[in-house]
Structures are given as C-alpha cells and as structure tokens.
C-alpha cells in the first residue's frame, strides 16, 4: 500500500473539494440551488461557478418544489444533478419530488429508470436561528424506502461520502451539519472515497459505546475525552449512513462494551436514535447489560434565545450525564 498523504482541512472545504473533483471527473454532474453560483455565499460551493460556468453551477429561483422535481427529471434523462438545499428546513417544500418521485420511480416503473441524484441538505442549530432554521430532519427520511441517507461527522467522511454519493446511481440525501462547517480534520489527499453503508469506530474503548449521528458524533468524541478523565473508557461509533444502517457494525461495538448511548441532534420521538435502539435490541439484546439511553433534542421547537436553545439541544455535557447514568 502506498503511503496516504494527509492534510488538515475543514468540513466545508472537504465538501467543496468533493464537488470540484466530481464535476471535473464527470461532465454529467451539475449543481443547482438557491445562491450556488456566487462564491461568496457558501464556502461549500466556493469557486465552482467561476470554474464550471453558470450552466453547470446553476442558480435557481426560490422554487424548491420546482427545481427538485426538475432535478429528478434531469436524473431520469441521464444527468447526475446535485442539489443545494441551503437548509433542510426549506426542503419541506420539496418533499413530493424526493419521497414520492425520486425514491419510488425506479421501483414503480419496474426498473426502467435510475435516479442518480444527490440532495445536499445543510442543517442544525446552535446559531440562534430559531424553530424553522435549526432543525435536523434526517429521521423523517429513513422512513422512505429507495432513498440513501448519509450523515457525515468529520471532514474525511464529508469528502469521501459525498464523492461516493455523487457516483451512486440512486437518490441520496446528504446531510451536512452547519455546526461542523468550520471543524478541521485530517483528509487524505487525492481521490478519497468512503463506502456508503459502513459505520466507523471513531474512538476505541471498552466500557460503553457512544453512538453519535452527525454533529453528535463530534459531541460523543468530546464526551469520551471527559469520561476518560473520570476513568471511563468509552468507544465512539459513527453510523455515517442511516439508510442503509450498518446494524452489524454498530452491534459489534455494543457486544464488546455491553452498554450504549445514542445521541442525535434531531428530536427524540421517532428519531434516528429510536431506530438504532430498536435495531440493537433485535441484533444484540443478550449483550446489553443496561437499557440503551437516548440523548436528543427535546420534543419542542428550537428557540432563538441562547439559553433556551441550549436547554432544547443535545450537548457533550448531556451525553456525559447520560453515560454516567448508564454506568452507575
């Protein structure tokens, strides 16, 4: 194996690199969304409009239903559109082309079409943007057969999984965590891809498994450091994709530690954590020494005020507290 050279870049730069590389590699890839053409608007799309032109880096009207449906049509006709939703909250205006059309067309038409579409959906709170600009909605979409759902938590996965998503012949919801945009981390140089459908152990440990989705995988790593200071050896597992969910990959860790916390930024009820907890008790009930505990956003909208927002959203401290409860 040749030595892989690493360098440190941010999560948003990793996304930007993946877009640059895939657009250069395949002329069928094009990017579409509100405010994607001008470099200054988002670091994730910087330089693309200048490099590839405004045909392939295409501003849209504020018309989520229209341009998402158009992307599905272009995908049926042989293109590989990548959509920029700006915020997942705005994507609610485009649920029909995603859930009724993109996800079902191949099945409904008996395999006559494939829909190679990537929907980039930045999301999440912590910036005092309030109830309609802070949500994490990935749990909604694991209920939609036919859709891949990817939730990267660090720069290497953001780059590697976005490149894989663009090469995938199926519709992919690619969730980006706004709180992680400035997070720096090591990313291999060159054509770095990561497999869709494989969980990753982000920190090895033996006492408890902390499973984190997206932004909360990062919080789990911070929680593991704090727990280490108190003599607890926590393992951190990041599912990385939640449809398909790598149940066996996650269960392997739980079989080792016997204890488990699931943390996500979405709301607790009907959340990704609920799905993971249910899957784990099916796959590894005998290995569990204690009940699985969930850390998630409380079941209220995300308020603007800093203090109130912190009450509602999950955090490193809440994960530490939950872990201690499970270990006691």
């Amino acid at each position: 194996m040749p030595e892989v050279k690493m360098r440190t870049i941010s999560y948003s730069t990793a996304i930007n690199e993946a877009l640059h590389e895939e657009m250069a590699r395949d002329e069928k890839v094009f990017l579409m969304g509100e405010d994607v053409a001008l470099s200054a608007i988002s670091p994730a799309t910087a330089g693309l409009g200048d490099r590839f032109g405004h045909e392939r880096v295409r501003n849209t009207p504020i018309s989520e239903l229209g341009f998402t449906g158009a992307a599905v049509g272009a995908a049926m006709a042989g293109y590989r559109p990548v959509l920029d939703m700006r915020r997942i909250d705005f994507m609610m205006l485009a649920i029909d082309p995603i859930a009724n059309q993109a996800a079902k067309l191949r099945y409904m038409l008996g395999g006559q079409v494939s829909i190679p579409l990537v929907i980039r959906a930045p999301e999440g709170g912590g910036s005092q943007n309030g109830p309609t600009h802070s949500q994490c909605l990935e749990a909604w979409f694991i209920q939609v057969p036919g859709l891949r759902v990817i939730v990267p938590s660090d720069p290497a996965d953001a780059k590697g999984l976005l490149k894989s998503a663009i090469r995938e012949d199926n519709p992919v919801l690619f969730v980006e965590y706004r709180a992680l945009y400035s997070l720096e981390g090591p990313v291999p140089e060159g054509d770095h891809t990561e497999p869709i459908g494989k969980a990753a152990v982000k920190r090895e440990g033996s006492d408890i498994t902390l499973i984190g989705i997206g932004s909360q995988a990062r919080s789990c790593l911070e929680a593991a450091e704090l727990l280490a200071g108190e003599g607890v050896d926590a393992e951190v597992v990041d599912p990385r994709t939640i449809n398909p969910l790598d149940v066996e990959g996650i269960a392997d860790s739980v079989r080792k530690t016997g204890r488990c916390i699931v943390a996500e930024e979405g709301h607790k009820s009907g959340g990704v954590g609920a799905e993971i907890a249910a899957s784990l008790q099916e796959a590894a009930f005998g290995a569990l020494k204690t009940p699985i505990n969930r850390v998630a956003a409380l079941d209220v909208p995300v308020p603007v005020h800093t203090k109130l927002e912190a009450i509602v959203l999950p955090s490193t401290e809440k994960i530490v507290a939950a872990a201690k409860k499970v270990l006691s």
Partner: protein
Amino acid sequence: MARSTSRLSRKRLGEMYRTMLRIRRFEETADDLYMVGKVVGGVHVSIGQEACSAGVCAALREDDAVLTTHRGHGHSIAKGTRLPEMLAELMGKVTGLCRSKGGSMHIADVSKGHYGAHSIVGANMPMAAGIGLAYQLEGKDQVAVVFFGDGASNNGAFHEAMNLCAIWKLPVVFFCENNQYAVSVPAEYSTSVDDISVRSKGYDAPGLTVDGMDVAAVYEASREAVAHARRGLGPSLIEGKTYRFFGHSRGDPHYGMYRTKEEWEGWKGRDPLIVCEKMLKMTAKQKKAHADAVEAEIKEAIEFAESSPEPEESVALEDIFA
C-alpha cells in the same frame, strides 16, 4: 378557441383517427376487465379525451418525451407504448411495463420516450422541466410534453415549472386537458380564469386554447408549440377544452352526481371520433377497416396479458436500488 383549418392530409388525419380508436378500444377493454375483477388496482379512463392524446403526440418525434397523469392511457398509447405490456401491467402480470408494481397510474415505456404516468397531481411538470433541461444541456433539439388537467393548473408545481421553463427557455410544451372537473369540483369554481391558457401570460410564454374534441385543431396547435420549443424559444401552454365521458373513476357515474345529463349529452354529441369521421367523410367500409385492425391489436394484447404469469414473490423486493 382555435379550431382546425383543413391543411392536414387525409392520411395524417386517418392515422390520428386510428390512434384515437386504439385508445378508445383499449380503455373500453380495460374497463370491462376491471368490472370482471381482472384489473389490479384503480383505472381512470380518458374516454372522450382521445383527441388531445392523438393530436399532441402526432406532432412529436419518436425521441421526444411525454409525461402524463393518473389518466394517462391515451397519452401512453399515442406515444407508442406497447399495448400487450401495458394491458399486462393493468392485469398485474410480471410481463407488464412496470413488472406489476406501478399499475395503471404509473404506466411508463421509457424506450418509447414515455417517462411515466405520475399519479401525484402536478408532480410531472417539474420533472418535464428537468428532462427539458437535460436536452438543453446536451445541446439536443428534443422536446418534452407534459399532460395535466384543469385541476393541476391550480397546483404550485405547474407555476414553478412554467417559471423555470420560461427563465431557462426549456423545450417543454405544457398541455392542459381541461375536462372541466377535478374529480367532482368544477373548474369554474376552482380556477381563477375561464381559459387556463391565459396563465401563460404570467410567464411571458405563448398560450392557446383549442377545441380538445377536434384532433386536427389539437395537432395544429401542438405542432406550432413543439416547433417553438425545438427552436430553443422555450415553453408554451396549450389548453384543450374536452370532457371525460366516464366518471373520474369507477366510483362515480357518467352523470347525475356532479354533472347533468344535458351537459353530458351535449359533449357526447361532440365525440372526437365522430368529429374526425365527419372531417374525413369516412365510409362504413373505411370505418370497419379501422375497427378490424384495432380489434386485432386489442385481441393480441388480451391474449398476451391473460397468458402472462403473475409475479414471483421475489419481485416485491426488486428494483428498489440500481
């Protein structure tokens, strides 16, 4: 409302008549099979509206695209969709176009440029814009036509798709079959305009209302709109005023619930087949020749569908991911 001039050759018009008859007989057959329990799922027939299907598709090339609706048998047939595989789909056979997983409301034959019946009202229009965008990006001169009803013209998807096509000059023809009713709700109640084609003005695109019972009028308007799109000049909106002689589905009668007998009889007197027969001054012998040829096609389709196998259980889990 635009009516036809008489520039069409008898041969061309005769082909359109044949298409309309094929649609009529296919849908009558589907309805009969539904009544004896041989059709799986719902069926929405377009009997009465055949001139729209036949007139529009006669203006298209084989490599152009159509997208249609839950009431899409006519558009499918007019675009060249294979009857045996289509009937097999309705009858829940694995040889069906969608391997028995889409049914009547999702008929597609992509090999014939038929990108699907789409049963969520309005959803097909943004997708048509996207297919038009693909043609434009590739530098092709193909055109996509999207069929929809009066009800769908009140849906945001129509307006968003019209705007996208207009700003990007996409090669898309919007064809509204105004059959006067969205299930039971009259267009005059639900729609802000008398002629839906005037909505094109909001998008600075050509709009025209035609007699949707006159296949020649539909063809002439469509030919112009298709040429406009092919030249890279963007979308057009055509409205065909038409009528379905059957209920929305099998759940409602031809008249008496939300349509009067007088209204129904008025439109029935303008049956697009009869209108076309008169234009062609068709003799009884000529009519019989058309009918015999179509019956042979229908018979072949029934035999194929009846003798085809039902799906294996494994089919339920196939075609989900590429």
